[in-house]
């Protein structure tokens, strides 16, 4: 079966190559955009207890809408292809980063913050030199969750003509053809492991101080 898969793969190597690149592009873009939205928002929430409820709630709810529904509802506005796929994936990826950033900030030892403030660090400096590094393990936890989810869900780009490895998966499922399904599935799994391992390495680096 693996051999058949490889044979099919070699036959369609150009298509595969393009699908991988598109998949990575869409995933990266979605992760980056989500990160840029979720981290500042999470920080803001952690400092504004009263709004955190509503903001986090809002994003969590948006996430519930099945991606296909998002795509259908958004098609008149966003059309098809890359942009709506990015939009739908971003909705998926924001909450894990958001929620973990929020917990990460709330979890910092108050005596450390007190020290930082007492030393005359301004809010910005405290944020960048103390809070973000200390919350980083959790932010990265969120990022890893989101990244895996985005990579797995980027297959939905295939619903709307944006390409990616989903093309192989849906074709495989539609035809009940394990060969094709395997190519798509294994590639997505591989991407997911690579991401996991490299983000673990990053997390390992930023938590060096926790170890002896």
């Amino acid at each position, binding site marked *: 079966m693996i051999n058949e898969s490889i044979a099919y793969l070699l036959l369609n190597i150009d298509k595969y190559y393009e699908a991988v690149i598109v998949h990575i592009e869409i995933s990266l873009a979605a992760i980056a955009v989500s990160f840029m939205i979720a981290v500042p928002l999470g920080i803001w929430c952690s400092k504004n207890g009263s709004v955190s409820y509503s903001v986090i709630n809002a994003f969590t709810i948006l996430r519930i809408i099945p991606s*296909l529904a998002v795509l*259908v509802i958004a*098609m*008149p506005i966003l059309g*098809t292809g890359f942009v709506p796929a990015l939009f739908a994936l971003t909705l998926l990826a924001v909450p894990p980063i958001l929620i973990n950033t929020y917990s990460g900030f709330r979890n910092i030892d108050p005596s450390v913050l007190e020290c930082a403030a007492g030393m005359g660090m301004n809010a910005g400096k405290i944020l960048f030199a103390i809070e973000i590094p200390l919350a980083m393990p959790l932010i990265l936890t969120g990022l890893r969750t989101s990244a895996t989810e985005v990579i797995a869900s980027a297959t939905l780009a*295939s619903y709307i*003509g944006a390409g990616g490895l989903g*093309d192989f998966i849906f074709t495989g499922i539609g035809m*009940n053809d394990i060969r094709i399904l395997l190519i798509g599935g294994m590639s997505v799994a591989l991407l997911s492991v690579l991401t996991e391992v490299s983000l673990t390495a990053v997390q390992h680096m930023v938590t060096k101080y926790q170890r002896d």
Partner: protein
Amino acid sequence: SSDQAKGNKVTIKAGSKDFTESLILGELYSLALEHAGYKVERKLNLGSAIVHNSLINGDIDFYPEYTGTGLLTVLKEAPKFDSKEVYQEVSAKYKEKFKLIWLDPSAANDSQGLVMSKRAAEQYQIRTISDLQKHASQIRFASQGQFDERADGLPALVKVYGSFDFKDRRLYDNGIKYDVLHNDKADLAVAYTTEGELSKDEFVVLEDDKHVWPPYNIAPVIRQDVVEKHPEIKDILNKVTAKLDNKTVIMLNAEVDIKKREYNEVAKEFFNTIK
């Protein structure tokens, strides 16, 4: 014989795939069985990739299938183009391989087809697939993956009509292909010939002028042990199948997909006219 069934209150597990037509048919067959005194447990709306396995597992007792699908997707045989031949082959092989029985096939043929938006069809003067082949380089094709791979899909077309070098070819989910055409994101899509949308004026099905599509006649596939125990089920279901031709099926589909009614109401309404 229906009295006997009434007395025992035998339960039959009905399945269907997860698209409108299959749901309506599943419901229709269920109603027929109930009318004959059986109890029916409906397990409709199953994923296309799952339904066959569920039947083999005994999670369901029967579901409406298409002869072409059985031949190409399930049995993975080479395409054939004659309705009878296809039917005989799937009947024989299903029985041998899976202990499953194909009941009588319908006149209705939910085959593949190519559909264009009327706007694009008129712009490029395309009526037939031959026309399409000539203008392919100007056409944006909304495919859905399997069509490009299936032996009865694009490869079959290429063999008969020559190659199609589309201006653009992207995959879309089957559920949104008419929206894609409607929103002018593509000009051409894969259709199934009984889809309700085809009753709309907006879309044009291209004529298969060189006759390449294999037949997709509808028939319930049922577990052998069930038929053997309750042979009269055959007749009950065949009676329904006999009423199904393309016009009827398109109409039923349109009631749901265009008029947005519930499939079970539509099925019930239709069943009342034929019972």
